Structure formats: C-alpha cells, structure tokens
C-alpha cells in the first residue's frame, strides 16, 4: 500500500538535511516494525519519497512523504506505531492511503508557503516589501550561479508582529524541480539577516490537477 504521511519537522531536527531525513524515515519505519517496501534490483533501496527538500535550519508543519508498505494494514494501526517510533523533532500529523498510480510527489509540487519571523528587525520592512514586489528582476547569486529571484516569488506580504513584537511575513515561493525559491534568499533580498530569522514552512501547494 502507498501511504502519504503529513509531518512536522521541528526542534533540532531542523538541522537534519534531506538525505539524512530520508534515512531517518527508514529507521523510524523499521523501529515501528512496519513492512517497508524496497525497490527491486542489485542494490534495493527503501521506497520512501519526500515531497520537497526543506532548507537546513527551517521548521515545518506541512511536510509530506510517500511510503510504500509490502502489505495492507489499518491506517490507525500505522499511525499508532509510527507515533511511538518517531524521533524527537518529527511529528506525524496525518496518515492517508493514496492511489499507487499517482505520479511521484515532487513532480506534482508547485509552490511552498513560508512564514518568516525576523528576530532582529528589518528597517523599513513595508517599503522594502513594496520595492521587492515591484522590482522587475532581483538578480542574486546562489552557489556561484547568477539567477533572478523575482519570478520565483509568487506572493509576499506582511503579517502582524508576533508576541515578542518581531516582524513577520509570509511568502509563497516556486517549488518545482529545478525551479525553487529559497526563503533565506528572500530574507537577504529584504536586507535581513538569515541567521536571525526563523523560517517555517506552512503550506505545500500542488498543481491544480493534483
């Protein structure tokens, strides 16, 4: 059976990268005693597919992973054993069965929504947001490669300050294979300090035919 698990990634787990998270899921399923399916072939690998890599250091309440099991099991049993086996910082929110014929998760993703909290305030934030929205291009360099950030930003707006009076924004960024906006790049484009910002993914947005 093919499962789609919604989970939160918090605490120290936010420093676990994509590959390590994949392994963390394999171990969690093994601890839970669930019959994880493996690919055929010379070097079988576990059939686990994460929807989208979360940048290191970000937290999330909406991560998705597809997992294939070798046998059909009741969903509440799966949910229960998983909850027992989760490591600190990963929390199962929902377990659903999906059609095995559906296309792979990453191919269906269109955008990610992030909430960014600035723990050191950004001067003239509203003005900077305006400028950013009206810019025709935002040339930036990521890993020595020049690119334009602007078309990757679908939406960006101010939120009310949080309980510590920190400024907050929400931003929707492209999240397609080979065309992904990075939230810390948005922080930099606003002249904020990424290391002083809390970045939290709030929503994964799929293509309309999903």
């Amino acid at each position, binding site marked *: 059976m093919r499962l789609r698990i919604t989970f939160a990634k918090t605490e120290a787990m936010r420093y676990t990268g994509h590959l390590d998270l994949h*392994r963390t899921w394999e171990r969690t399923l*093994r601890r839970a005693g669930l019959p994880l399916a493996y690919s055929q072939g010379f070097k079988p690998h576990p059939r686990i597919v994460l929807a989208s890599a979360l940048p290191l*250091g970000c937290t999330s309440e909406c991560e998705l992973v597809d997992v294939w099991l070798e046998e059909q099991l009741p969903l509440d049993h799966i949910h229960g054993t998983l909850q027992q086996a989760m490591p600190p910082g990963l929390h199962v929110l929902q377990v659903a069965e999906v059609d095995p014929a559906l296309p792979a998760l990453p191919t269906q993703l269109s955008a990610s929504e992030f909430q960014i909290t600035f723990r050191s305030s950004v001067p003239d934030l509203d003005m900077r947001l305006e400028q950013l929205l009206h810019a025709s291009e935002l040339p930036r360099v990521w890993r020595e490669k020049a690119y334009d950030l602007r078309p990757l930003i679908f939406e960006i707006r101010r939120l009310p300050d949080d309980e510590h009076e920190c400024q907050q924004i929400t931003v929707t960024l492209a999240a397609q294979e080979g065309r992904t906006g990075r939230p810390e790049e948005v922080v930099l484009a606003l002249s904020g300090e990424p290391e002083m910002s809390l970045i939290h993914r709030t929503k994964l947005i799929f293509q309309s035919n999903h």
Partner: protein
Amino acid sequence: MFNPEKIQASLEGILPCVQKPGRYTGGELNQVLKDWDNVQTHVALVFPDIYDIGMSNLGLAILYDLINQRGDALAERAFSPWNDMEAAMRRSGVPLYSLESKRSLAEFDIVGFSLPYETLYTNTLNALDLVGIPLFSAQRDEGHPLVIAGGHATFNPEPMHAFIDAFVIGEGEDVIHEIIQVHQEWRQAGGSRDRLLRALAQLWGVYVPSLYRAEYYPDGTFSHIEKLAEEAPLPVIKRIVPKLPPPPTNLIVPYIDTIHNRFPVEIMRGCTRGCRFCHAGMITRPVRERPVQEVVDAIATAIQKTGFEEIGLLSLSSSDYTHILELVNAVSQRFSGKHLSISLPSLRIESFSVDLMDALKDSRRGGFTLAPEAATERMREIINKPVSTVQLLETARAIYSRGWTTIKLYFMIGHPSETLEDVQAIADLCKAVLSEGRKLIGGRAQVHAGVSTFVPKPHTPFQWVPCDTVEQILAKQVLLKKALRGNGLKLTWNNPEDTLLEAWLSRGDRRMAEVVYQAWQRGAKFDAWKECFRYDVWLDAFRSVGLEPAFYTHRERPIDETFPWEHISTSVRKKFLTEDYLWSLQGKTRVDCRERCFACGILPTFADMRRTHPGEVWQCPEVKSKKIPVQSILEKGVEKGESRIVNPISITS
C-alpha cells in the same frame, strides 16, 4: 557564567552560520537527559574530535549507558567543535557545553576524555581551554572538575601526564563505578583535591601521574619512575572485566551522518594471533567472547530501539571467534530479508572467510577487505602474520568468483628490516591478485591497495625498533606510486609527516607533555585531519622545549633500555615481548595462542579471575589454583602472584 539558557540562546544565532549544525544540537533519539539537581555525580564524556567521529566510538557509548543506568549519576556528551564553530563560540564567549543539558563542562564533577589515539592530544587541551578549566592538572583546585582519560593511547599516558588528573588504564566498565563512588565519598567527607587523587590511585587500573616522578639519564634516556606517595601502586596494572557485560542496545541515533552510522556490537575482545606490530592485540588480552545468543538478541533489541540499517560485528579478528559460523548462520537466518547490512571486519586470509561473507547475504557487495600487512612471506614471518602467498591468491580467486569485484588489500611499509624488494613485492602481489580477478571476471576486477606506514607502539614486541624516516617513507611511496599504475589498480597512502607525529607521541615520555602544550599554543589542533595538521608547528614546539624529535622515533632502542611506560603494566611481561622481538629478528613465528599458551603474563596476573570464569568465556587455558585475590596481586606485584597453569608451555630464552 553561561548557564544552559544563555548557551541555548547563543546557539540560536550561531548554528545557522556553521557547517553541519546537527553536530551541536543534541536531542537525538535515545539521548538521556536527567534532572540535573536529582543526581549527585555529573559526568561529561568527551571525545575530542568532531561529533561525526566521536559518535562512532563504542567505548563512549558503553560508558554513557553504564553511568546513565545509575540512579545517582548522569553522563552527558561533548565533542570538539569544528574550526568554524569554535571560532563562533570563542567570539560569543560560549564555553564547550554538553549536548544534553547545554551546560558548560565546568559545571560537571568529572570530565572524562576518550583517547583511543595520540592525535587527539592537542584537541584535549583545546577542549579544556574552551571550558576554561586550567590545562595543567597542578593548577586545578577543588572547584574544578576532576579530569580523567582512558582509551588505548593511555597505555602510555606520559605525554599527557601534566594535563590529566587520573588515567584509567584498561577497560572502563567496572572502574567507572568505583571512580564515581570515590568521588561521592570525597564530596561528602570534604577535603583537598590531593586527597581525592590519592583515593583514586588506590583503585585497580587508575594511574594518578602527579603521585610519581620520572628520572632520566644524562643522555636523555629514561632511568626510572619514583613514587611520591604511599598510595601510589607500582606498577599500575591494567583493569579488565572478567566477562564482557551485555552490550548496550539503546544507542543514540544521530540526526546527521557519522563515519560509522550503525549498530556496533563487540563479539569478542582481545586477540590470540600475536601480530607483533599490533598494539590492540597486545593490550586487550585476554580474549573474552560473547555467547552467540547474546549477540543475536542484542541485534534484535537494537533494531527495535534504534532502527539502524547496518550492524557491525566487531572484534580484532572475527575469524577467530570460536563459534563464528554458528553466529553468522544465526544472524543471517534471523535477519535475512530485513534489508540490513551486516559487516564482519577483520577476516583471516582464507577461503572460509568468503563463505562467511557469503552467508551474510544482505551485506553490501562492495569491496572485500584483506589485510596481509606485508607482501613477502619473509616479512610476514617477521611481523608474525604468517600466511602463504599461495593461500592469499586462492582466497582472492574465491572472492572474485563469488561476486565481489573489488579486493581491498591493506599493507604497511616500514616494518623492521624491510627492504625496497619487500616494498616492490607489495606492487607485485597486488598485480598478481588483479590478474587472478581478470581471469575470472575480466575487466571488472579491481584491487585497491591501502598502504599505511608502520608506527612502533609501546607494549608491543616492536617497541624497540626505529620508525622509518620521512626520506625512507617517501622513497618507498614513490616506488609504489610508480609500480601501482594502470587499469583496475588504486593506491592510497599516508602522509609521512602524519606518521611521524603519531610516532613521537606513541613512545614519548613525560617531557613530551611540554611539546604537546607548546604545539597547542602555536595553534596545533585536529592533528588527525590532513587540512589542519601542521608539521612545522610541531617541529617548532620541539625546538622550543629543546628536545630532538628523532630521539623518539628513529633511534634503535637497546634491548635493555627501560621504557618510560613500563610502570603501566598490560600484564604481558617485558620478558615475553623481548623474546618475541628477538624471535622476529630470526624470522621465528608463534602460532595462535589458542593452540598453546606462551605464558605471556596474562594468566599469572588474572589467574583468580580465570579460575572463577572457567570455560569458553576466556580463551586462555583453565587455571586450577588456590584463590589469589586481585588485591594481593596489587600489593605484591605481578610477578609474585603464584598460580599453576594447566598445561603451560614455559618459554625461556
């Protein structure tokens, strides 16, 4: 003072800016976080290299488990921060902290360092400095933690004698509890730090260096050690456990990748082979085995608790485990189809090893590793690892024909009396193995030769021999690099300067402590890392102290020289080592001591332990003798402990 809240708050700003922040967070699955105020004794276990390496150390995991099982104590972990993190910590004034409670190590009662190898010495100093604990033991007072250290390198503790309050010589499983108890009694009774140290010195296996003074001859060689306190034993006999305790199974599961990201289980401790270069083989005697069922059960429990996909069955020589076939069959039956990979390192060069690996079907079909150590039969007789070239090639054929495409061959250069012909033979042997592979599987066959440089180690039959000079090593490496070219061949080697550092420190004396200190002051740290090791800094440190590096490495030590580590007793007698060294010069080998006892000295020392643990648990001969309490051995010294070994073969030179 940085309290846990302040450290945590500082980390929020620091972690996003460093590489692999997962090294510094703690909070992993199976970590133990106790209520600080509810326990009496707080122990920080420090592996003075980065998390990725330290988390793979089994010794640390064993002690963590044992201490945290106590109701009255806790153990937390700390590792060396990598350079970027250290810089950030120093900028913000964050001290080295424990991963569990984020407390400065200064708040702990005991700070214990794991020192399995010598290149961690400067990192140890750096860790103390990052906490703000005085580096020199003599400068610490009652308000500072007790600083202890253990691990294989501490069998010659002298280069670190000035910095460590007490060393644990040997196995820590039992003595750690005694150290905690002595510490608790001292805390309750009050008293000076000196009183604590004297009490610790009376524990079997504990060496308190400040209670001894070393004397030297005018030519710089070591004369003798003098004890400065009644409580100080001479010699200090290594600690062992009579029987391996059940292995820890609830190991911490790292959030990030580490070098050995797996569940490790020791199937056996010690080795009966007697390879003359092998430090571990000499210091971890006697051989004690774990029952097959205990190993299998531990794996089953560990999979439930950790979910690790890889299991390492650890020992110095897996093939020698009495019930190896039974173990391998039991493991493969119980866990096959579960997508686990089982590693079984250190296999003998014989086709039976291929059968064993084949039985562990789920294992990754990567490379098959063999360690002939030397390429000529003459050389292998000198180092007492006798295996014929015919047998090696036969094993290689079995490996290639059973599905492996790569054979990794481990060699050392720099063995005593080695010539360039012996080095050339390494290349010839690799090519011979490759050509066997070509015959069987054609162009897919590969040979990877890993050629390290031999470093003579204390407490081994080669403790007298000079280490190769940089020039000698380079000449041998040039030869190999030229000879081992071509399709299907790959060669890896060590930087000769790294080898020298290890060699200086391995057989160093107390004066070396000043060199370590001076090197650290000049910026030496992470000496085990190619990108950080600075040879010039060490040479400069030697100059500043007025010591000659070659004195420690390239001097052939006379057969009657007294060594600065002789007051540390592994219980393998010097007489045995001397004889073995002399035998090596004649190319005379010894068989596995399971076949016959060579009276190395272990049994007389631990006769009583052997008597109370009869049968297969130990691989030494059975002992029938009157009860000799260990205490009396400690009082009388090793040589006087009388016992009668059943069927001993006494060797006299």
